[in-house]
């Protein structure tokens, strides 16, 4: 398992580095159109060919990877932050407040997030710029994904409340907001970090699903989801196998995240 984890980590490092150095590696800009060669095949000039608008697919893949791999963790950060704040306060306060917050969390968990996401996405103005649409898409993902993590954080916070160092801090006169900020929140770090890592692949897949439907990152900015839209053209897919490369990269990356998070369960 350790070797598999090392291989997964190495793959992720390579993908992250490639996307970070996209400006240096990519043969052209993601929006540059080679108008004389739309839908070109693989060549030394265009490693993965060009799309219907003549844009280099390899360059778009590199920049799209950057968008997906930069913003999915950002959304996960928003989600973990909200979960830490809401779940932490609920667990810290306990009693009625905890019951109300947990009822709200249950409500959020049982709602169909994809329908909500489409509803909120449809309310954006038509003249929203691509960069803002990216930020809004991932911010929405982050804001809708806090509920599951908040439950875990709340359960952990409840256990922490009866920890000896918290009782000692309380006995020395530390209380209220200071106790929460200085002693409580920092100790929720490990559980928040775990929730952060768990959320990343979920958000990558969510963006991919939105992108396929044409409601993700706006053109001309590339993203994995946006690039998968090309697959809807069946004639193109059946003739050119390299349009599958974004899927392979997406599945491999998400798999690596899952492998990294997997624990070795002992047999019963």
């Amino acid at each position: 398992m350790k070797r598999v984890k090392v291989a997964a980590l190495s793959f992720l490092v390579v993908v992250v580095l490639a996307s970070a150095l996209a400006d240096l590696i990519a043969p052209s800009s993601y929006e540059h159109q080679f108008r004389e060669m739309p839908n070109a095949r693989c060549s030394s000039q265009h490693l993965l060919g060009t799309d219907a608008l003549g844009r280099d697919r390899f360059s778009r893949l590199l920049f799209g990877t950057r968008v997906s791999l930069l913003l999915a963790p950002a959304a996960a950060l928003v989600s973990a932050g909200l979960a830490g704040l809401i779940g932490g306060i609920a667990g810290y306060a306990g009693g009625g407040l905890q019951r109300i917050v947990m009822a709200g969390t249950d409500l959020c968990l049982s709602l169909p997030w994809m329908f909500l996401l489409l509803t909120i996405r449809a309310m954006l103005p038509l003249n929203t710029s691509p960069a803002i649409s990216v930020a809004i898409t991932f911010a929405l993902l982050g804001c809708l994904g806090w509920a599951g993590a908040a439950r875990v954080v709340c359960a952990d916070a409840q256990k922490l409340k009866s920890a000896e160092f918290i009782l000692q801090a309380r006995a020395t006169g530390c209380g209220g907001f200071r106790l929460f900020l200085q002693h409580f929140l920092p100790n929720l770090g490990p559980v928040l970090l775990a929730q952060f890592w768990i959320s990343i692949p979920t958000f990558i897949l969510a963006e991919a699903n939105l992108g396929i439907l044409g409601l993700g990152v706006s053109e001309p900015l590339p993203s994995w989801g946006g690039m998968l839209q090309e697959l809807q053209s069946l004639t193109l897919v059946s003739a050119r196998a390299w349009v599958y490369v974004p899927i392979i990269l997406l599945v491999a990356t998400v798999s690596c995240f899952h492998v990294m998070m997997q624990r070795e369960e002992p047999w019963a």
Partner: protein
Amino acid sequence: MFFASADRALASDGWNSCATAKRIGLAGLKCGARLLGLILLGGFLCATLVRSSPGYGVEEEELDSRLNAESVKALRDARSSEGSLAGFYVQYWKQMLHGDLGFSRSLQEPVGQLMRERAPGTFKSVGVGLVLGWALGLPLAIITVMGRSTAVDLGANLLASVTLCIPAGVMALLCVLWQVPGRLVLALVVFPKVFEYTRNLLLRSAAMPHVVTARAKGLGPLRILVWHVIPTAASPLLALGGISISVAFAAAIPVEVLCDVPGLGQLTWSAALSRDLNLLVLITLLISAITLLANSVAEMAGNREVTETA
């Protein structure tokens, strides 16, 4: 002596059934309050969105070039006398309670009619997907835990990991490409969640002291599974049942859009693209109410299970 112990047993039975009834009653109340809250909030949201949507308050009559400014003004005055913001909300609720869900601006049809036409297809797809997903995930998890075979565990884990890592949209596209029914995608989306969660639950349940004792006493694997492992895991499994409905509905959108299946998912997508907020919010409200109801029923059943086990 005998009568005294029998009295005590009867009293204890009575107390248990009373506690069960109380728990179920509380869960029912909670479920009702949640549903009421959602409907009130959703209705308020619907009304707000309809009122603030582009083009609200402008009727086609106003665009008639034969009307002069005074006639247009008279039309607007007549409409403004329909009421204030509060009046609008009251009117909207009255219409909703009478079954009038409004009109879809993009499809030019009543929302109620559109939903009635499309809902059966989606419910059927989701139902088939859930049944297939559970039929694949649950037995595989049981075989993995009880069989203790590395090969089976590896194979099942690989299948679950692969299906978990492919977006539902991509699976739907592959279904179109390979000419396989799109409903299978819903099963493949539900399967890994059911398998992984059930496997972990059963593993935890199988490691409990009473199960180890039963095994040490020489009980058969089937008996251990049915009498000792599954009852402990039943309550969270029921909760998973509720959550898997929400997962299946979410996956129905890309599946219906990409496989061209007319249903609520496709309707939601077209409403989102054409910014038909009234239609979009009402579908979301319907699906939310269904998933919430399913989750509450699962929670109530889980509560009953826990009480009976106790």
